[in-house]
């Protein structure tokens, strides 16, 4: 086992972060034991086992029952969770994690390095495409002793640590899954993890109840006795629940943006849009480059300049989220704040379209494009209507098409669209969450790949350099260069850095302490009297 100087630095650097977070969160109020947190889960997930299902609601509730080696601060610094410390070799290929002692699964079995290796190499590698792509870089995984895991990579991969959050690599008990079909194993129905709360009961269509795990590895924690996740399908009922105090916490899409201003005004409620730094979704107008004239850079630039991003963020989303400035979210690593898309300018947009040879006809229309409205709720319909009006001002007629969620995903995946709206999580690093939308090698007939068909060898090369470089400085250089090219060529028209309101009773403390917000274990969350 080689402990390099840099590795030691990384390990010690993690400690102050932990202290800072803990200090900041307590806000001088002594944590109080006891109490039930009632919150909301929408939509109801099919299963609660992270890995078998990795959709939003499963991650929200699953992160209370499952933990991973690390978590991440709002600036995406690693925070130790099940890994007490870790070292990285100078060549960036060897990662050694030292695990916490006395960690038990909810069934009483101790958690060891074997469980960690099983979770990484087998469980998530088989179940989750995102984990599979990255864990494929692991050359060997060995347990040098029951509390030490040594991972050797085939090549340096600087964003590697970002994969060890509970939402990406929850540690599952090997003894309950090994040798079985992971999707149908009995443990999927009664999840068993190492988290501060364990599964108690699930009345389908009604609620899921989690109870305090007495043998949790942090002494004295968690503070709450239980958490009840109620399934409330109607958004106005959810708003009423938080307003009347029947629920003390709402998250993700529970509350519609237009309801937020009224809830902000309530003296007993706290509204925060923090805690999404790890995911940092950026929304954009998805352009299909195979459709003329969207293959023309000038046309794409004109579309981008015709849109008032401030209006979208302020009027449509009521300030929940902010205008996107470039393809990398400002909360994601390697975002270059000096590189920005051209500002809102209707005249310049019209001039670009003139230059591209698209003259307006008698009705003032230069050309017509179809727009597949994102069927994720009403606000996206409003966005479609807004885009239609904005683009009409520069002479582009947008014809709206409505569809259902299944057909939307199918049509985007099959390239059967002209324009639409899309957004993906960035997972803290452009290599993990941005690259996939722009590189030639990822032009696939699969949703959330480079479905637009943009291809630029220079961009491919820069993303590749950034992916393989071990030094963050080299990566920054490549990412800055790629952001510059993308902002000039506008392969997709970025609209907004999305955020989701977390609304909670002021009596509930420590809700958002990390860059994962409500997707953390809640072992330090408590209710004041």
């Amino acid at each position: 086992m080689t402990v390099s100087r840099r590795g030691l630095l990384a390990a010690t650097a993690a400690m102050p972060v932990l202290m800072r977070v803990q200090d900041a969160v307590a806000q001088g109020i002594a944590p109080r034991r006891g109490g039930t947190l009632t919150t909301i889960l929408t939509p109801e997930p099919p299963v609660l086992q992270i890995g078998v299902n990795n959709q939003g609601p499963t991650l929200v509730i699953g992160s209370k029952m499952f933990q991973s080696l690390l978590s991440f601060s709002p600036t995406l610094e690693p925070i130790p969770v099940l890994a007490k410390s870790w070292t990285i070799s100078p060549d960036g290929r060897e990662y050694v994690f030292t695990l916490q002692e006395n960690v038990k699964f909810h069934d009483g079995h101790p958690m060891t390095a074997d469980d960690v290796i099983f979770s990484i190499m087998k469980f998530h590698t088989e179940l989750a495409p995102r984990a599979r792509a990255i864990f494929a870089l692991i050359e060997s995984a060995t347990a040098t002793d029951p509390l030490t895991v040594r991972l050797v990579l085939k090549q340096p991969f600087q964003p590697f640590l970002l994969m060890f959050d509970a939402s990406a690599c929850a540690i599952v008990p090997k003894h309950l899954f090994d040798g079985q079909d992971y999707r149908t194993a009995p443990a999927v129905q009664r999840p068993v993890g190492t988290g501060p709360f364990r599964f108690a009961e699930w009345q389908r269509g009604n609620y899921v109840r989690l109870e305090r795990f007495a043998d949790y590895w942090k002494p004295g924690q968690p503070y709450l006795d239980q958490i009840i996740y109620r399934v409330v399908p109607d958004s106005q009922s959810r708003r009423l629940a938080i307003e009347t105090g029947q629920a003390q916490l709402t998250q993700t899409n529970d509350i519609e943006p237009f309801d937020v201003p009224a809830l902000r005004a309530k003296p007993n409620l706290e509204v925060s849009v923090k805690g999404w730094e790890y995911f940092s979704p950026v929304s954009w107008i998805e352009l299909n480059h195979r459709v003329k004239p969207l293959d023309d850079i000038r046309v794409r630039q004109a579309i981008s300049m015709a849109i008032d991003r401030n209006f979208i963020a302020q009027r449509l989303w009521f300030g929940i989220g902010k205008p996107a400035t470039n393809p990398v979210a400002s909360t994601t690593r390697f975002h270059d704040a000096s590189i920005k898309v051209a500002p809102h300018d209707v005249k310049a947009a019209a001039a670009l379209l003139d230059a591209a040879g698209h003259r307006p006809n008698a009705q003032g229309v230069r050309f017509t494009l179809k727009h597949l409205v994102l069927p994720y709720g009403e606000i996206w319909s409003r966005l479609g209507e807004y885009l239609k009006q904005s683009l009409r001002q520069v002479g582009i007629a947008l014809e709206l098409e409505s569809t259902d969620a299944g057909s939307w995903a199918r049509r985007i995946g099959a390239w059967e669209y002209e324009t639409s709206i899309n957004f993906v999580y960035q997972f803290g690093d452009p290599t993990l969450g941005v690259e996939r939308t722009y590189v030639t090698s990822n032009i696939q007939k699969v949703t959330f790949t480079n479905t637009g068909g943009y291809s630029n060898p220079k961009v491919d090369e820069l993303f590749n350099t950034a992916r393989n470089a071990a030094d963050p400085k080299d990566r920054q250089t490549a990412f800055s260069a790629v952001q510059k090219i993308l902002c000039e060529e506008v392969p997709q028209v970025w609209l907004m850095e999305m955020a989701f309101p977390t609304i909670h009773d002021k009596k509930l403390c420590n809700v958002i302490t990390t860059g994962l917000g409500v997707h953390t274990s809640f072992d330090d969350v408590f209710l004041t009297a």
Partner: protein
Amino acid sequence: MKDFWRRYRRNKGAVVGLAVLLLVMLMAATAPLLFPGSPWDMASAPFMPPGEMGMLLGTDSLGRDVAAGIAHGARISLLVGAVSTAAALLVGVSLGAVAGYLGGFADDAVMRFTEFFQTIPSFVLAILLVAIFTPSIGSVVFAIAVVSWPPVARVVRAEFLSLRGREFVQAAEVLGKSRISIVLTDILPNALSPIVVLSSLMVATAILLESALSFLGLGDPNLMTWGFLIGSGRSVIRLAWWMSVFPGIAIFLTVLSLNLVGEGLSDALNPRLARQRSGAA
């Protein structure tokens, strides 16, 4: 004609209904003059209450003028009502005429076919049809027509059954007139009054159906309709009541006026029934 108007006029409600309906039609016809430009244009700041900044009925979440939306929406709502009713009449009258005039096996076949449609809840069927054919003005009209024709077929069949045995029809048959000419020139004109009354009510139902579909987000996304206005205002009703209340009033008045007109037509076309009713009252 004068006689008809005299009888129609006796029903005060019907006169009011006609006046309201004419006003709505006038509004639809003059919408491009009253509110030039597209109703989708952002005319003012979002969520302006009625009366502020020159917005008579307020603005919606994108700053669009609700009054312009209602005026332009009247065109679509009336158009959908009229076209889908015409389509439903075409199908319903033809099938009903065939069943009622021919009788026997043809009657059985057509009526079982009609019952097949009547047993399916009409609104659910309409939603299904629009969802399958993707929402557009064409698919909405088609869906409304498909769910609206069965009552027409039944009414027409009943009329034809009672008329085909009458002396004037027998006389026409003896004269050697062709079946098609008997149906079109002898029976149909005499069966017209219930069809006229029914169709005025069908227009009202069609407007309601279209609004309900738009409310659920199944309307044509490129057209401003009353149902769309209510649907988009529903979620922010606590923030901006005017967004759903005014289009709601527009639908209410139009549908009510169509019903009143239908009743007036019924009175005017069946003077004996009307007299009995007023005599009893």
